[in-house]
């Protein structure tokens, strides 16, 4: 329902997306993703050295599972939020990872991507 009490209400979701610079709604957990698309998001974040983020397992909460889709007007899980803003699902995150946008977006959040250090190591060789 919409009343502000349920875990899927707009207010509840708003609180969740704002609680950390990087928030992910997924199936399973980062330690144990339960879907290939959710796993892809976890792996991409890991590549960039982002291990400190909030992950919510929608399989544990049907109200949240529907609520997050209503909130973003996006029909699928996983959903990635950076600084409280919906960025996209795993296809978008993959695209951002491949074209360098993810490094830039993380920088705006004050997060230095691990890939920048990997590049530095490359240059030293």
């Amino acid at each position, binding site marked *: 329902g919409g009343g502000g009490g349920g875990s899927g209400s707009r207010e509840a979701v708003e609180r969740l997306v704002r609680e950390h610079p990087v928030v992910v709604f997924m199936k399973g957990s980062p330690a144990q993703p339960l*879907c290939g*698309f959710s796993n892809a998001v976890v792996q991409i974040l890991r590549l960039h050295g982002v291990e400190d983020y909030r992950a919510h397992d929608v399989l544990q909460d049907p109200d949240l599972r529907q609520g997050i889709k209503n909130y973003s*007007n*996006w*029909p*699928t899980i996983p959903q990635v939020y950076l600084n409280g803003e*919906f*960025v*996209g*699902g795993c*296809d*978008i995150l993959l*695209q*951002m990872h491949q074209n360098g946008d993810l490094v830039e977006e993380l920088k705006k959040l004050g997060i230095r991507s691990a890939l920048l250090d990997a590049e530095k190591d490359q240059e030293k060789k």
Partner: protein
Amino acid sequence: RGFASGTDGESRLARLLREKFPQASAIKVVDISGGCGDMYEIHVESEEFREKRPVQQHRMVTQALSEEIKHMHGLRIFTSAPK
């Protein structure tokens, strides 16, 4: 389940996408569920996507297929503007 085989589902979705994206220069739909008709890869290339952020482009597709998506387990979306 199964009145729509993989190929039927692909054709139906491609037809729907052609209606919703009249300016599309390329549309491809691939059943990636092993023929079960519940997971697809959607490729749309259209002038309508130019200058739009990827999430906006993808949202145009999810909105065009909102009814169909309700019956899918998942989908992958690839959008672009013609080069």
